[in-house]
């Protein structure tokens, strides 16, 4: 009798519980590398506009994203619907079958984003991903450390851009006056932030040929620029052994006088009490070409998603929709690729940033129009990025630049041969 009652109660619970799960309830799985609160506003708005849809966030470290995409989407796993795709990875990922052909939406893309943004997510004449943000880098400086050394802050006006030679001299002076470190990059050892050094010094981007599958990194200009990078660490301007994730906190802690970094770090800097910072145009080599990094993340839809239509709707909302695109910059202030949201973003930033960000909008517009250098668009990009980042890391830790670049060139040839 007791068992019967128990069975009856279980049945009742099942029947009563059933209506709470609506037939239309769908969970979209979104894989990305940014802090999860980046998406608070855009996900809330999307879920409100689409009752029954829930977006589940899956954050992984930047260095793990490639492996996650490769191992899960590569295995045709449906547990990812939407994922962040670094734009230079589009040619390799589309070749591997990890992306959905979006060319049928070309007219919508052309209405909302620039031609450059479409090019950044295209390969083989097709569009593969939704451009989310664009990017540039600036030179942050610590006002207190500069004042202590009697240094004049560099200008935010790109026409008065500082040279690397001047920045290194000032960094030494700041260190002599008490700064622990002089100057560093926040994304140490990453090609994205170091590429402009090579372009500025006339060394080229490192890949050549019609398919950009021929390494061009062991020439004198590349060796010279790499040696310059190595000297930043051997001469004590910048610290060894600190990963990119820990570099902005070092600046926020007042240990670093100058740092080349992305504008998204401003969120942390504004929140840090007693940190007085300013920003200037990214330096260039005297006699060289002013150059800055660009391109950014895009939003891709997995071909193995079980909810592809909804996944496409979410990705479109985050990027091509003017309001959605602006919401995607709320907690991580990167310039949106969406044209209307881009203008609104710059207005908002200058309004919120006060005197610190006076001139920021003009700087971003100038850099994107005049100095931005794209990373090589090649099916070999993923291999190139991985091998080059290791080479930069080795040089930072004291390896000989020429020997390191030669070994990297050989590794690239070997990796590219496997792609063909």
């Amino acid at each position, binding site marked *: 009798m007791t068992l019967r009652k128990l069975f009856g109660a279980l049945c009742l619970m099942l029947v009563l519980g059933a209506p709470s799960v609506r037939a239309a309830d769908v969970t979209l799985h979104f894989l990305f590398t940014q802090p999860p609160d980046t998406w608070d506003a855009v996900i809330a708005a999307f879920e409100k506009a689409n009752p029954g849809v829930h977006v589940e966030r899956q954050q992984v470290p930047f260095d793990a994203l490639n492996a996650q995409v*490769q191992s899960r989407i590569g295995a045709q796993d449906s547990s990812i619907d939407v994922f962040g795709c670094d734009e230079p990875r589009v040619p390799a990922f589309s070749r591997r079958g990890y992306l959905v052909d979006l060319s049928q939406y070309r007219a919508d893309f052309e209405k909302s984003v620039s031609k450059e943004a479409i090019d950044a997510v295209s390969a083989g004449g097709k569009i593969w991903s939704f451009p989310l943000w664009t990017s540039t880098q600036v030179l942050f400086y610590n006002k207190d450390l500069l004042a202590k050394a009697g240094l004049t802050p560099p200008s935010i006006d790109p026409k008065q851009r500082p040279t690397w030679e001047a920045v290194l001299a000032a960094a030494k002076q700041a260190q002599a006056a008490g700064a622990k470190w002089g100057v560093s990059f926040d994304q140490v050892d990453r090609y994205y932030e170091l590429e402009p050094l090579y372009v500025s010094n006339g060394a080229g981007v490192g890949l050549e040929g019609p398919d950009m599958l021929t390494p061009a990194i062991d020439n004198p200009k590349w060796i010279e620029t790499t040696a310059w990078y190595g000297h930043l660490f051997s001469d004590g301007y910048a610290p060894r052994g600190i990963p990119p994730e820990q570099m902005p906190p070092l600046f926020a802690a007042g240990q670093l006088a100058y740092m080349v970094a992305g504008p998204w770090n401003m969120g942390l800097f504004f929140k840090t009490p007693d940190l007085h910072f300013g920003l200037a145009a990214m330096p260039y080599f005297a006699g060289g070409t002013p150059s800055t990094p660009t391109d950014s993340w895009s939003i891709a839809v997995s071909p193995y998603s079980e909810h592809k239509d909804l996944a496409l709707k979410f990705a479109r909302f985050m990027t091509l929709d003017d309001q959605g695109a602006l919401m995607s910059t709320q907690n991580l202030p990167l310039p949106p690729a969406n044209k209307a949201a881009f203008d609104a973003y710059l207005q908002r930033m200058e309004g919120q940033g006060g005197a610190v960000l006076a001139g920021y909008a003009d700087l971003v517009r100038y850099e994107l129009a005049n100095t931005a250098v794209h990373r090589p668009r090649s099916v070999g990009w993923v291999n190139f990025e991985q091998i080059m980042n290791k080479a930069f*890391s080795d040089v930072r830790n004291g390896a000989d630049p020429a020997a390191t670049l030669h070994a990297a060139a050989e590794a690239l040839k*070997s990796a590219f041969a496997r792609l063909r």
Partner: protein
Amino acid sequence: MRAGRGEALAAALFLAPALVAVVVLRLWPTLQAVLLALDAGRGLSLDNFRFLFGDPEFLGALRTTLIFGLIVNPVQIALALGLAVLLNQNLPAVGLWRTLVLLPVAVPQSVSAVIWGVAMRPDGPLNAALAAAGLHPLPFLTSPATALASIIVIVSWVGVGYWMTFLIAGLKDIPPSLYEAAAIDGAGAWQRFWHVTLPQLRRPLTFVLVADTVANVLVFAPVQILTKGGPQGSTNLVMNEIFTRAFEADDPAGAAAATTVLVLVVVVIVAVQFRLMLGRDEPA
């Protein structure tokens, strides 16, 4: 006869979940890796193996793994054995010491790697301690001369306590009468260790040697998190090489071939270890 058949059926039923798991989770993926390595979809070929054995990165990874194994296994087992013998004595608060030595096992490998990474930073607490003691700072993970040694310290921090527990269990199984008899025969502490403890520990030591060797061949998390195989390939252990090849370089066939080589190497090492430790007359 009928009872025998019934027993066999019961045994098969009990074994079935484990056998299914072995087939699905071990043998099937291994077979798939071998087929992929042999390019089975396009006719059998050894091209992937030819490529690997001409690739300096892979050969370097094999060399680094060999050096790593030759150092880390004896160090871990010697320390685990020493600690097991020490903590098997009637020391005050011996349970506390055993717990403290075993505690790192409870910390996930990734977490302990991050903690060690911060501790070993050039401006981290370990160098601060060295400076306080009037010693020169060490580059730890940033120099090819010290990075592999640093990884050995990190994996041993976890490993030694873990393997120690098996050896303590082995020590507990040794009948005290053997030590009493040896003492009556006039054997000293060293002679008792050499002639009673070690021979009696042969089976647990064999297990620890084999399992530790395999575990150390498969070391991955600390390398991936802390050095990614650098600086200059000095910590590029073969598991990191396989991971990089499979999931970053988009070379699944090369990674499958490297996995096949790794499995063969491990099987040979384990077979040799069993033969050496158990002798010809004892079943492995």
